[in-house]
């Protein structure tokens, strides 16, 4: 028996107790991220990474989602999320973009930062200097928490307020949170923006462009108050009388409160003053002297969006640098085809409704300007080579839109656009000159110039883009927001509001509001301001959200249910090409529930306190 024991001992000695101890001690842990100044700052960079890619032309939540743009006939909805929004195929089971999940992930990351930042130690600077730096970082994290909540609010209406870090092993009320009412959300987000503003800088150096400043926080906050005062969220008993939490609490106010417009006015004014104090002003083109004021205005508005980090930009998106040929690159997708094989695709164009929206050169809506032959807008004047609709329009029309026989300025030269089927930039045709509809092309017969940097270039062999930060918020918006709030609150424009609106119009090379329209008041004034904003911010992702908050979207988009409008890109002659054509396969479908994004059903299932948005 002894010997057996010896054998057993022998066997056992072969089995080291540490045999299963495989995990090395140096596996990365979260604490490693907060060891020093550099890694902690890098963590903060990571907190920013949840800002949605505003530059992503295919998958984004604002750009291209209105009926201003139309994609090539054969593009599928699976690759282009904006098409899903346009065609109303956003559903709770497969929501188009997971803004909800993304924003809350970002919020968690920020709280994780705030929880751990105190552990960090300086590397190269003194503790005192480091404390200042840390205070700024904390403000940035708070700003981001406010901003992510703001994003949620913008898309979903009333959301769940997360005001602290939630541990994974939390339970009960700490874990399962209900939605707060829209106004509670607004107040919370405002307080968070205010907290952030305490230590945010007035300005950031060029190497940190893209980081928030005090003005950014105030500007976003003011926009939030504009939304909160707007009809969709301010006393909307028409849509949302049954929109309640499970305990019955109403999530959107049921009675109109006019003072919300006052609050919006004040906050906007504060933002304007704050930004102007830092040298902010409306952008004008100054790279080369221009004699003709009309031409100057065209250049102002063509360059305004794309001239990087210009004086008008309050906050630009720096998270992505556009690359020629990339499938998410707007300039690649939108610049007309034909000058080079392959990219650019020339697959995103402007619709006819966008084209018609612009004023005449007199600053008056084209259908209202007696000097404009609206009835015959699809005919060609004698001796001309394009239709009357393209003549005598305001400078922004020529800055934003590329039309058949019009100019397209890229690579420092003007080229004529030839957009009929079989022509250089038009729909390709086969050997039998049959139009080949399943090719990338400008389906509506119009190109977009806004957002295309004139320095981007395409030749038969080369294609390059000049990148720019997508404007998240710029001064002109604050000007127009202020005017709108003022008109809503007082029924007229005060001196500041008048000044702001006319500044935007002047920069666009059109007469003042009064000079063009006479003295407008009430609804007429508000309508004019709405149109002003839709023109100025065309292709910048504002109109869908504005139409929603104005409670106008459902009616506005109704005519496009069978297809948005364009010219007939399969036409090879003036007679066939220049006509008001319903773009088959490209409907814009907006139902009442579309006013608020659907929350992913999965998230509803996981949180028994969470209620879905109405209609989804």
């Amino acid at each position, binding site marked *: 028996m002894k010997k057996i024991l010896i054998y057993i001992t022998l066997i056992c000695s072969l089995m080291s107790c540490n045999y299963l101890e495989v995990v090395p001690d140096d596996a990365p842990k*979260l604490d490693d991220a907060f060891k020093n100044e550099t890694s902690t700052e890098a963590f903060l960079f990571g907190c920013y990474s949840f800002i949605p890619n505003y530059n992503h032309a295919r998958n984004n939540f604002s750009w291209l989602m209105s009926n201003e743009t139309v994609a090539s006939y054969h593009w599928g909805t699976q690759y282009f999320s904006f098409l899903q929004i346009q065609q109303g195929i956003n559903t709770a089971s497969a929501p188009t973009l997971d803004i909800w999940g993304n924003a809350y992930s970002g919020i968690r990351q920020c709280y994780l930062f705030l929880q751990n930042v105190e552990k960090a130690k300086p590397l190269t600077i003194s503790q005192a200097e480091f404390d200042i730096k840390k205070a700024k970082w904390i403000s940035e994290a708070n700003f981001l928490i406010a901003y992510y909540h703001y994003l949620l609010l913008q898309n979903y209406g009333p959301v769940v307020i*997360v005001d602290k870090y939630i541990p994974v092993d939390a339970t009960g009320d700490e874990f399962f949170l209900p939605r707060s009412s829209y106004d509670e959300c607004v107040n919370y987000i405002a307080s968070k923006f205010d907290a952030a503003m305490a230590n945010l800088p007035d300005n950031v150096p060029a190497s940190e462009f893209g980081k928030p400043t005090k003005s950014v926080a105030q500007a976003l906050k003011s926009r939030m108050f504009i939304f909160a005062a707007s009809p969709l969220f301010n006393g909307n008993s028409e849509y949302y009388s049954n929109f309640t939490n499970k305990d019955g609490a109403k999530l959107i106010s049921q009675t109109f409160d006019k003072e919300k417009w006052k609050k919006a006015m004040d906050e906007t004014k504060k933002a304007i003053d704050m930004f102007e104090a830092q040298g902010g002003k409306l952008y004008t083109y100054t790279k080369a002297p221009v004699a003709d004021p009309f031409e100057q205005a065209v250049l102002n508005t063509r360059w305004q969006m794309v001239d990087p980090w210009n004086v008008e930009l309050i906050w630009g998106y720096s998270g992505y*640098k556009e690359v020629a040929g990339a499938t998410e690159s707007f300039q690649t997708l939108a610049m007309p085809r034909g000058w080079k094989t392959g990219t650019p695709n020339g697959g995103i164009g402007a619709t006819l409704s966008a084209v018609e929206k612009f004023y005449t050169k007199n600053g008056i809506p084209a259908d209202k300007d007696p000097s404009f032959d609206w009835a015959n807008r699809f005919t060609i004047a004698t001796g001309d080579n394009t239709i009357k609709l393209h003549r005598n329009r305001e400078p922004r029309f020529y800055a934003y839109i590329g039309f058949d026989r019009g100019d397209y300025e890229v690579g420092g030269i003007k080229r004529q656009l030839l957009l009929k089927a079989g022509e250089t930039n038009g729909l390709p045709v086969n050997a039998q000159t049959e139009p080949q509809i399943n090719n990338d092309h400008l389906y509506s017969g119009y190109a977009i110039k806004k957002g295309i940097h004139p320095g981007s270039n395409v030749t038969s062999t080369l294609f390059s883009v000049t990148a720019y930060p997508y404007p998240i918020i710029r001064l002109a918006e604050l000007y127009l927001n202020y005017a709108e709030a003022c008109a809503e609150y007082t029924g007229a424009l005060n001196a500041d509001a008048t000044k702001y609106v006319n500044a935007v119009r002047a920069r666009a090379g059109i007469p003042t509001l009064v000079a063009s329209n006479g003295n407008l008041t009430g609804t007429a004034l508000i309508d004019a301001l709405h149109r002003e904003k839709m023109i100025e911010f065309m292709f910048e992702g504002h109109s869908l959200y504005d139409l929603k908050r104005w409670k106008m979207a459902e009616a506005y988009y109704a005519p496009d249910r069978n297809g948005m409008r364009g010219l007939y890109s399969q036409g090879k002659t003036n007679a066939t090409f220049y006509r008001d054509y319903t773009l088959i396969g490209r409907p814009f479908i907006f139902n009442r529930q579309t006013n608020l994004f659907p929350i992913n059903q999965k998230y509803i299932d996981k949180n028994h306190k969470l209620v879905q948005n109405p209609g989804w």
Partner: protein
Amino acid sequence: MKLLKPKPKDINRMRTKSDHAKNQIAFAILSFFCFSFFNVSFTKAADSYTYHVNSVIKRDITIKGTVKDELGSPIPGVSIKEKGTSNTAITNDQGEFTIKATSEQSILVISYLGFSTQEIKATNNINIVLKEDAAGLDEVVVVGFGQQKKASVVGAISTISAKDLKVPTSTLSNAFAGRVAGIIAVQRGGEPGADGSNFYIRGISTFAGPASALIFIDGIESTTADMNALPSEVIDNFSVLKDASATALYGARGANGVLLITTKRGGDLNKAIINARIENTFSTPTQLVKMANGVDYMNAFNYAILNRNPTASPRFSQEKINGTMNGLDPILYPNVDWQDYLFKEYSANQYANLNVKGGSQKADYFVSANFNNNNGMLKKDPLNKFNSNIREKQYNLLANVGVNLTPQTKIVLRLNSRLEDYGGTNTSIQNIYNQIFYAPPALFAPVLPNQNNEDYILFGNLNGGPIPSGSGSNIYRNPYATMVSGYNKRFSSTNTASIDASQDLKFLLPGLTLKGLLSFRNYARTNVLRNFTPYYNEVSGSTTDAQGNTNYIYKSVSRGNSALTSTTNNEGNRLMNVNFVLDWLKSYGNHDVSAMVTYLSREQSNNTPGTDANAFRNSLPVRNQGFAGRLTYGYKSKYFFEGNFGYNGSENFAKGDRFGFFPSLAAGYLISNEEFWQPLSKVVSSLKIRGSWGIVGNAAVYSSDGTAIKFPYLDNVSLTGLAYTFGDTWQTTASGAQITTLGATGAIWERGEKMNLGIDLSLFNKLTVSADVYKENRDDIFMQREVIPAETGIITINPYANLGKVKNEGFDVNLSYNQQVTKNFFINLRGTITYAKNTLIARDEPQLAYPYLSKIGHPLNHQFGLIADGLYKDAADVTNSAKSAYSNVILPGDIKYRDLNNDGIINDNDRTVIGTPYVPQLIYGFGLTSKYKNFDFGFFFQGSGKSSIMMSSIHPFNSDQSTLFDFIAKDYWREDNPNAAYPRLINNINSHNNFQPSTFWLRDVSFLRLKNMEVGYTYKNYRLFFSGQNLLTFSDFKHWDPEVGSANGLTYPNLKVYSLALQLNF
């Protein structure tokens, strides 16, 4: 000559006219091996012999005799032993034996596999008649870390003879379905090198990971690929351990069942036995899915456009349709059957095996060489210098060499080397099949004729397709171009070596043996992929020259490159096993006791951990360590008790959670051994009732996407997971830390509580029945936590936890019937049924809006979708029905769904579990083998039931790209065909009301097929046979092979295989 019976040990039988005395010694040595290695119970041989090396053998008298069966046929190879001595003999081909005995009063013990052992008083010229023992109670069954006599087995173990696994396929697992009771197996395709069946022992009891069985070949843990490559000729024993009693030894790793395979050994033979087989097979698809022709396609496409928008213009002109219909120029009017264009109708394959066994008293050997040449059906392009068809050559070398150092010390060295030389396509075959779905027949010809002596292939295409091309305009998918534009050369080798030593420790304690096994396995693979970018051209017209020759006008769609570019990648892993077994067995009168304890450690490492973020974790070894033990007690060979335990650890869990204890208990009652049973024994020759209970674990933890998780208890942190950029020139960038998965505190293995009740019955000594019913409750299934509100920000980083529960219950039955009809005619009938039904009990399911959305209470792998109520009849029907949230415009002829929640909207909340699950719940098989004189004939039917597929990716004109299936072309909805099998056509869309998973697309894929049929003729040492596989299939599902399980039939098909083989034995 007595015919062979399909018994596991049968293959050990020596069919030579060699010297019997030597055989006798060989057998003795073999028995000694068995004794010293596996103590738990005896082999038949061990029962009959006791080999005393040191004793002096007296040779007093010589006794001669013959052994015959009940029909009077002599039985060769029967072992005769004088009781209480070491005197042994073996019968020759005439059944004659001569034995030296100590006295006239000696008792002879006569034993032979498949027959009842007899004890007879020795008399000269004795005639012994052996009686068949259909129950095979004396057979040896390989169990975990040892062997047991079948009579004493109380666990649920299926064994199958190598002969029954010998089917004309080079892949072992394809022989499982219907042949092995307790295995659910389905073959999902016949692609050479990837045609192995998916198999699950007693179905699937977990939703975490692949639920695959643990496989041991000669005690060395092996992969399914290793097993599949094992030639059936080398297999000695094949055991399937099904219940907890059989698998508890494997503790934390045995819950999904265990396969034990032992390979053959040599013996003390005076002459080497050589066995060879050469086989030539032809394979051809069982059933391909049929595509519509160009004319049907174009007409249907135009109809799809016009039926929804009468003012739109049709895509194809009548001129083109007519041209195609009249078979005009195939380049200008293409009408391509892509499957026909890409694939040959059959392929030829070769198989050869040569094995030799022999040995002496000091050493024995078994050597096998195997060559396998499998070819795919892909065509080669004449312009290519290379061939991208699948050509898989497999070489297997196996050597088992035993050396007896001393009578108490033995060493066995095993080498198993497998080389695979594979040639195939640059991309996966599945990708080519997927492209066929997107290759309509009438758009372009696969290849255009070269007109300007181009040295490259001009592939057909069209401008403006959906795929961005590197240069030029976007293109359509041309599957032929994808197939022939490159090739793959892959070489892999798997080498396993083991040394197995055993030491008899009877000097310490009688019956005690120590055995050690050290093994090493290395797998390495090199892959070289080469390809060129195809040149795509569009035909824009044609001209006819003076001679009447047609010249096509080509327009470049995308420029290619005729030079091949290469990429290379490697993979590999290695496995190291250490195993000690201490065995003890002893009989005290009526009491048989045995005990076994084993230590096992295992380390598997990745040879190519890669260079990405996971490389570091991938480089760490996977380790297991543990003890296991078994205690058995038998009383009077009637009552059997057994206890097993495993105590195992895994490196994958936190300290303190690493080890687990897995016990099992089992008992058996061999009623037929009771005295009172004797009157019944003519009818019920043998009856045993077994029962077991135990706990087994499954330490394999997987993420929901099927990748193994290392260290689930740790937070997974990527220190550079989240990046952002600032600056006027995007110059300020930093990447911050990100938790990619939260750690699961207290993560452990899943735990299966298994219960089994079995019966082994033998009637009239002809029919044997083995039946088991079982139930398993698997809990602590590892899964990612579900119920975490998204608002916490924990969405994709959910920690894992042991939260899942699955119940699995079913039965398996094995039937075998042997009948020697006449002296020359023998038949054996076999059948198995395996039924396994699992039910999801818990999975941390979120609170769902409607109870019917829940997956709890339903089988795993279930189908989920809407319930279709046919097609909308008319506009009123559409208006009066619930509105579809899937499409804005619904017309008559679209699919009408049931509004389960009555909210007036058809959406995802109206889905529920429908039909039977994807993995079949029922597998059965039955067959016959018979022999008449020199002819033999056999067939085997295999069936599968309670299984369904959800057809998807079948919809034509999807985004204007996909092709049209013939069964849709023949029966789609039109005003004049309102009850069509396919709803109203639509084009240029990829998501539609009609495309939703629903009962409309659900198909029952139960089938019965003639799996195998074989006719053979034996002449002397040669046997020539012809066999066929998958010859007939009966199923209600007609569109493609029901077994492949494909959602649209576009996958490498299952094959009908015809083979002609010659077998030699000398």
